Each structure stands twice: as C-alpha cells, then as structure tokens.
C-alpha cells in the first residue's frame, strides 16, 4: 500500500545571474544542489529551511515550472524532464501548486469563479454548465458560497483568498499538491482555518502534499515527515517528531530554538520590565 | 531722389534654392540669384526691352542667326577674362543633355561658332523668331570654361559676371551676396550686398517683413496683399505673371473629345476662383493667356468662355454624357490656392452634372503620374515662359519638351500655325497668325484657362528702385531691378 509518488534523484538547479559580453555565463547561483528524496502517496512532507535555501526552487523543479539543471524527477508516473504535449497536460492535471502569496497568486482583474474554472477550461473538462456547477461546489467545499463566484480577489480576506487558491488547485482533482508557503502570510486564526481545511481534504482524497514552509510550528503540527534544507542542500530528513525531538544536525536544532514560544515564562530576548 | 550707395538688402523668398547651377532652372528665387551672380549675352531692362549685357552689340542677319560682339575687357569674378570661347562653352553646355538645361529644347539644333575672340555666332537650323529672347533669359548665363573644367561643383559655387558675388551659401536656407566691384556696368550695383533667406512658410515670410527682419519678400500670399497694402510702411507691387489652368489627359476617354473639355471650360466660375482662392487678386481668363500689355493681345477673344452652365450641359450631352460624367483630378496638396481652386471647380462642375473626385497628391507623385499619363485631369499654375507668343509652342506644341507634353494633345492645324509664326520676325506679320493660333487653341481647349494670378513683391518703404514687370518677366523682375535698387 505504500508506494512512492515522487522520486527525486540528484537534482540541481543553477541560475545564471550574469552573462558576459557574448552571452556566456559569468555568474551562477546554485539554488538547489544534488537533492534526492522520495515521497509516499497520501502523506505530507514538509520542506523547511531559511529564506533562500532553495525550497521554492525545488518545488518549481518538481512541478516542471522550472527545468532542473541535472538529476531526474519522477512524479505521479511521469518523468518530469520528458514532459511535452499530452503528457504535459496529463501531468498538469494531476499535479497542482498552491502559492505563497494569496494576493498575487490570484489575478486581481479576474473574477474568482473564472479563476477556479480556468483549469477545467484549459483541459476542456466537462460542459460549461457542469464546470459552473463544480466551481460552486468547490467554493462551498472551502467554506465560501455561490455568491462569491462573481467577486474579484480584492473583495476577499487573505484567508478567503487562500481558500480560493485551494479550490482552484482542487478543481482538477489532483493527486499531488505542492503548497509553497501556503499559509505563511496568514495570521494565526486564519492560518488555522486553512490548515484544517487542507487536512480534511487530504483525508478525503488521499492527497499528497509537499509542504514548503519555514514556520516550524505549522510544520510540526501538519507534516508526516520533514526535510531540512540549507544552502540548496538537503541536510536532514526524518519523521516529524524525530526531527523536532532528536535533530541530528546542529543547524536543525538552531532553527527549532529560534522559534519564539507563545509562553511568557520562557523569554529569551527581554526580561519583564 | 538720388540713389544712395551701400546697405544690404534682406530678401525673403518662398522657393528654396538648392543648386546654383545657372543652367538648370530651380525656382523663382534661383532665377533672381542667378541673375545677380551671372550675366547672359543680352538681357532685359526694366521696360522689358532687350539690352546689352556681356555682348555690347548684336546683329540678326536672318531669322535663324544672331551674331554677338562681346564687350571689351570684361572678366569673371575670379579675374579671368570673358572670351568668345567661354560663350561657346556655355551654350554648348546648355545643349548637352547631361546638363539637363532648362533651355535645351528652346535652343535645340542650334550651333555656336566662335568667329574671333570677341565675336560669336549662334545659328538655328530653321527660322526662329524667339532666339534672341531666349538667349536674353538668365538661364542662358555665360560661365567660364576654365573654371567649370577645373572640376568645381556648379551647384555649390559661383563664378559669374553678375553685379554680385557669392559670399556665403547654405542650400535651401540662405545665400549672402556682396557687391561685384568689377561689374561691367559702371557704378552698379548700388547695394553693398543682398541677403537671401529662403522662407517657405507664407506666414513666417510675411511676419518677418512685418517685424522688419526682412526688407523685401516675394510671393506675398494673396490673403495678405490687401492687408499689407493698407499698411503705410510697406509697398506691394503686383503683376500678372502666371495663370492657372486645368489640364486633361487627351489620350483617353472622355477627354479625347474636345466637346468635353469645352464643356468644362464653360462650367468653371473663374470669378469665384479669383475671388475666393486669390482674394480678389486674380483675373478671369475668358480668352487666351496672352498678357494684355503684349502686342499680340487679342481683345476679340475676351469672353469666349464666360460661365454658361447650360452650354456646358449641352456640350456634354452632345458628347454623349447627358446623364453626367465622373472624373478625377490630381491636385497638388501643398498650396492653398490649388486646393481652394479645386474645390470651387468641383462645385462648379457638379452644377453641370460632372462628378469630380479630387486626388490630393504631393509634388513628386504629381510629376511621376503626369509623365506616365496616369491621370485624368489636373490643376496647374503656369508661369509665362517667354515674352513671345511662341510660348504656346512650349505649352502644347507637339515637339515641346515642356513637361506638359505628356498630356497627349496633338493638333496638326495648330502645329502648322505655330511653325508659321516662328518663321516670321516682324510683329505685325505675326499678329494675325497668333490670333489664329489662339482661336484654334480655344476651339480645341487642350487646357482650360482659369485666371491670371497676381504675383506680388512686398517691401518696406526704404527699398527704392524696384520695378515689377508682368508676363514672362514677372519672375525676373527682382533680378532685373537688383543692380539699380538702393536703400533709403
């Protein structure tokens, strides 16, 4: 019953940031270096690390939004480097991304109903009437209602927007979702709502999440396994509780220690005045 | 008043001088400039009479020959003497097609012979009463063989025998002249110099005169003639030197039929055009375009084509266009007089049942399409080419290389009459011939003559000694007057 849905082997990604006069490469950023990992279907794997450690880049390589410089990626039965034409379309249907910023990931000039139906339109699924019906039911599923379909993104709160992004990702009934900092921008209460919703949907559809975050509290609460990245490398990996309680790497320990605890008795920066 | 020496005349011209080649016509300002820099063998004086220039005298042994006797001791501005050889060289240069000389067709098959150092003979193959008047035009300027053959650029430099010398020149912008102290007429010119400024924009030119940054301008726009005349500070001299006409492509239907052309001649309201397009500074031509002061002027023809819409309709019906006619007309778009005239003609023709479509074009296209015969009709302003009725031959004669030739009109009867007229030198004998010529022209109407337009020079009151001539010499008037003009 345990089968890997994602297998990443030796993936690196370089960005050229400066070119010479004739267009030759002058400067390179090694955003991801030789990363390998496997993810089992139906689980949540968190990718953790400081800003700039290559988390998003890895996510984009896995979802074929960026091409890896080297290494192989197999996801949901596809070789990601060989996607084209119909296989690309099939891949796009099964793999979805929820983006970090709930505002910028929705087109401010399009009604959210249309945004949710986009995937179905692109893949020409269902009749227009069915699409509409499905869109409404998705909206309801994420706790909104049919009236909201005709509104623009700015007319929603951050949490609502994030839920719309989720509805959009679910419209194509994917089996794998990369959630790139999907809840980082939300405040506590809304963050909680969104995480609950994601958990519910995972339970229903046996979804797999690659959950990118640097919020360790959320990760501890939400993930089955945790990967720690630093400087583009995968430096530690393991089940969530093990990582938090017995980290092997000193770096991981430092990350965990840096999290401010919601407990006035454990102050580090400032004594009570 | 006694003329005073000195001073520089600032003269604004509408046309832009782009070349100083004295043999290739380059617009009215060019003509004045060339006349100031160079001299022909003979020239015109302020009354239109032919007078000595480089030649002190001449003889016409027969109707096809002139023998010139050069003045003694005259020199080009670079100091070299003017010889009979220079005269031959200059006239031969006129005849060389590679020069593109304006007068080449007028002088076709002429031969130039040097008789001695100061005597030259010009002879045409057949009788030509116009020979002397042609050689008196500024375009027949004499240049120095040595100088030209030294490889100078005639378009940019000048070395003549005229009253003035070139001091500075920027093509199409300005030319500054200074007095030629060695000018062969004693005491002339009176001015120390002339500053030519080429100002295409009518308003800019007029405003410059008004604000006194210029002393004199040419082509005072018709709309401003009255306004400026009323201003005591300025004097406006006008003379009819050019006439407006409608040309037809006689090689194709419907204009191969003279009745159609005549119908149009009847339909046009010449007074309205004179009034509206020329602000009253035009004069209807109901007869033929011979200036009134010419001895060949024939008052009997006046009124041949008075506006008569009924007659126009009748002629059209006769020609088989009883149900009306569609035609198009090329109109040069750059000048208000053309577009205004065109619109009035359009309205006039409508009344006669002709639906005229106007095609506004720029000059180069107009030239190209006319030369290709790719047009039905067009409006054109013609300046009188010669102070001689043989001008008709250049307008519509079969051999003419005047650029109206491609209109495709040919008439044997007219050709014969024109040849006859050219062979005679006696005015009285020529008169009846040219009356017949004009009659024939009006009968066949290759062109519809519209009106004389007044050409006006405007100048401030301190400018003295200017004489405006009419007819063919209208354009040359400033050039003729320059040596004896002076500033108060």
């Amino acid at each position, binding site marked *: 019953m345990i089968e890997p849905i994602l297998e990443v082997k030796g993936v690196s990604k370089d960005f050229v940031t400066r070119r010479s006069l004739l267009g030759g490469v002058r400067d390179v950023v090694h955003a991801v270096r030789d990363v390998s990992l496997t993810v089992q279907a139906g689980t949540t794997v968190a990718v953790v690390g400081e800003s700039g450690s290559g988390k998003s880049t890895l996510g984009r390589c896995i979802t074929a939004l960026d091409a890896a410089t080297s290494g192989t990626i197999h996801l949901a039965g596809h070789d990601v480097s060989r996607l084209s034409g119909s296989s690309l379309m099939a891949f796009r249907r099964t793999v979805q991304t929820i983006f970090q910023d709930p505002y910028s990931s929705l087109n401010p000039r399009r009604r959210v109903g249309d945004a949710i139906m986009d995937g179905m339109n692109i893949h020409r699924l269902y009749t227009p009437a069915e699409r509409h019906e499905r869109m409404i039911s998705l909206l309801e599923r994420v706790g909104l209602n049919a009236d909201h379909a005709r509104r623009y993104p700015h007319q929603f709160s951050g949490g609502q927007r994030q839920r719309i992004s989720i509805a959009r990702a679910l419209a194509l009934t994917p089996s794998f979702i990369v959630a790139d900092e999907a809840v980082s921008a939300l405040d506590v209460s809304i963050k909680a709502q969104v995480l609950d919703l994601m958990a519910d949907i995972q339970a229903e559809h046996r979804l797999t999440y690659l959950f990118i975050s640097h919020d360790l509290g959320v990760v501890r609460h939400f993930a089955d396994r945790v990967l720690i990245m630093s400087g583009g490398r995968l430096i530690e990996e393991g089940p969530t509780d093990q990582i938090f309680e017995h980290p092997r790497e000193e770096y991981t320990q430092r990350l965990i220690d840096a999290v401010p605890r919601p407990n006035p008795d454990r102050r580090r920066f400032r004594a009570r005045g | 008043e006694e003329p005073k020496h000195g001073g520089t005349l600032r003269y604004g011209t509408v046309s832009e001088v782009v070349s100083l080649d004295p043999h290739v016509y380059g617009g009215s300002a060019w003509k004045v400039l060339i006349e100031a820099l160079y001299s022909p063998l003979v020239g015109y004086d302020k009354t239109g009479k032919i007078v000595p220039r480089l030649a002190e005298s001449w003889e016409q042994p027969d109707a096809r020959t002139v023998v010139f006797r050069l003045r003694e001791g005259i020199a080009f501005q670079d100091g070299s003497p003017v010889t009979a050889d220079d005269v031959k060289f200059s006239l031969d240069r006129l005849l060389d097609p590679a020069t593109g000389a304006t007068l080449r067709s007028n002088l076709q098959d002429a031969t130039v012979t040097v008789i001695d150092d100061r005597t030259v003979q010009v002879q045409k193959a057949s009788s030509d009463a116009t020979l002397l008047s042609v050689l008196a035009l500024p375009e027949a300027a004499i240049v120095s063989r040595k100088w030209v053959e030294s490889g100078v650029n005639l*378009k940019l430099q000048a070395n003549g025998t005229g009253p003035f010398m070139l001091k500075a020149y920027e093509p199409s912008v300005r030319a500054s002249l200074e007095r030629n102290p060695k000018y062969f007429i004693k005491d002339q010119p009176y001015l120390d110099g002339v500053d030519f400024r080429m100002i295409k924009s009518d308003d800019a030119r007029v405003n410059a005169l008004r604000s006194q940054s210029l002393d004199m301008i040419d082509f005072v726009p018709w709309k401003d003639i009255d306004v400026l005349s009323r201003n005591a500070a300025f004097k406006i001299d006008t003379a009819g030197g050019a006439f407006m006409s409608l040309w037809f492509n006689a090689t194709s239907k419907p204009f191969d039929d003279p009745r159609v052309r005549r119908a149009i001649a009847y339909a046009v309201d010449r007074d309205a055009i004179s009034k509206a397009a020329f602000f009253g500074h035009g004069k209807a031509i109901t007869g033929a375009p011979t200036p009134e002061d010419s001895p060949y002027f024939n008052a009997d023809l006046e009124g041949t084509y008075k506006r008569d819409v009924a007659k126009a309709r009748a002629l059209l019906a006769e020609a088989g266009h009883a149900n009306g006619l569609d035609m198009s007309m090329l109109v040069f778009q750059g000048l208000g007089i053309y577009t205004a005239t065109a619109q009035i003609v359009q309205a006039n023709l409508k009344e006669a049942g002709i639906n005229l479509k106007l095609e506004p074009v720029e000059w180069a296209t107009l030239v190209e399409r006319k030369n290709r015969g790719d047009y039905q009709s067009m409006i054109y302003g013609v300046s009188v080419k010669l102070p001689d009725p043989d001008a008709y031959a*250049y307008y519509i004669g079969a051999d003419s290389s005047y650029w*109206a030739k491609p209109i495709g009109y040919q008439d044997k009867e007219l050709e014969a009459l024109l040849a006859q007229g050219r062979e005679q030198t006696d005015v009285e004998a020529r008169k009846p011939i040219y009356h017949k010529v004009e009659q024939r022209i009006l009968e066949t109407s290759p062109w519809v003559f519209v009106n004389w337009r007044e050409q006006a020079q405007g100048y401030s009151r301190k400018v003295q000694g200017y004489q405006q001539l009419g007819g063919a010499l209208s354009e040359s008037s400033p050039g003729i007057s320059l040596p004896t003009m002076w500033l108060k």
Partner: protein
Amino acid sequence: MFAFIVRRLATSLISLAMAAGVVFIAIHMLPGDPVAIMLGEQAGSDPEAVARVRAQLGLDQPLGTQFAHWVAGLASGDMGTSLRTGEAVSTELARRIPRSLELIVAGLFIAVALGVPLGVVAARERGRVAGGAAAVIAVLGFSSPVFVLGIILILIFSLGLGWLPSSGYIPFSDDPALHLMSLALPALTVGLNFMGVVARMMRASLVDTMSKDYVKLARAKGMSRSAAIRRHALPNAMVPVVAIVGIRAGSMLGGTVIIEALFDWPGLSSLLVSASFARDYPVIQGSLLAVFAIFILISLSIDLIQASIDPRTRRQTS
C-alpha cells in the same frame, strides 16, 4: 555596467543596420523620380536629359549595386552626396543636427520646467481645485495643433508685444543674443506642447510614489510633507518621466517639421521633409540614419539615467 553598454550598443547596431536596409529599399521604391523633379518643368520630361542626368548620378544602376555602394561609403565615413545640392550629406547633417538638437533640448527643458511643477501640484492637490486646475492647464498644451499654438505665441510675443522675432534662424556665431531670441518662440512652442505629457506623467508617477513607505518613513524621521515629497518621492517619480522625455526627444528629431516651417528654423526635420519631397535619396537615408543613431544614444542614456536614479534597475535591464 560597461558590458551592458557595449551589449546594448551592439544590439542597437544590428537594428540600425536593419533599419538602414529597410529605409533604403522603401525610399527607392517610392514613386517619383528625383531627376525629373530636379530638372523642373521644361527639362524634367525630356527623356534624354533625364536619362543622362540619372546616369551621371549613378541612379541607373541596379538597386543592389547602389546599396552596396552606399554601405561601402558609410563604412569609410562617406554618407554620399545630395542629389540636389551636390553637397556632402555629412556636411549638411553636421549643420542641421545641432540646430535640431538645440531646439529640442530647449523645448524639452521648458516642458520639464513647466510640466514637472504642474504635475507636482496636480499630484499634491489631488482631488482639490488647485490639482484639477493644474491638470487642465497641462492638457491645454497638447489640445491644439502646434501650428495654432505657435501662431498664438507669435501674435502675442512678436507682433503684439514685439519682444521676440517672429521667425528666422540667426546663427550663434553671428549674434549670440539674437540667436537666443530667435530660439525662444519655437522652443516655447515645443515646450508648451510637450508640457502636458510631462505633467500628466509626473502627476501619475508622483501619486504613486507619494504613497510609498519610504516617503512615510521620511516623514516618520521628522521631515515635513513637502520636504519628504521633494527629496524622496520626486527623484524616484522622475524615472518614467525621464523615459517619456527621452522617447519623445527621439521622435522629435525628425518630427518638428511644422514648427521648423512656422519659425523658419532650418533643422533636421525640414531637411528630411524637403529631401523626401524631392526624393533626394542620399539625404533621406543619411537623415534617417542620423535620427536612429541619435535615438539609440538617447534611449541608452535614458536607461543610464534611470539606473542612476533607481540603482535596482541596473541589473535588470538587458
């Protein structure tokens, strides 16, 4: 930075070469024969004369040969000779370009000097009468054709008050003071016409930057509102204004025909137009090439100016 400039110039050179080729073909395809026009009424339709003069000028050769000839000439710094005037095109351009640049620079200076304050007022007083009035004044400049504007200025300053000459170009070497006076009206016309665009751009851009956090921070530091706007918002808001001024300057090089005619200012535009009317191919080619080349330099300097205002753009521009 250096590499950026070199690369930019290299790509520009390629586009310049392409433009030159296209222009060459286009103008030679134009109907109309320069020789027929040059020779005028009487000789211009004499086929023999036309043919001989064409041969003399090398116009009878195949277009490819002519092009090769022209390019070869360019490579050795020879832009050819004007068919009409017989003058070297480079001489003619060397005379005209400075005059055009002078007019444009003076005009743009006026446009900026008037447009920027108008835009600033319109932005700062947004939603109030003063702001609306500033916006309307700005539009006044470009809401009537330039010739109408120019004539109005002549009526007022030249014929009415008699302060300035109505037209005419007086070389600086002849009389510096008169030269500046002759420049005044045409430059003012260019300036007023363009002022509106500058003002609207300025206003839009400033409204945008005024609400930026760094302006708020400047105020939080204790700066007054106007000082914060002047020192922090304005420089950054100038970026798009610089761009539009630059682009416009480029298009004005050959686009001030009407003004040059009205004020008798012998600049590049009138040369280009009269050469075009006369089909003086070498002059047309040369002027257009000069316009393109200058524009390329202008757009490069826009980028450099923008980079100096906003250092972030330094790396982004390709």
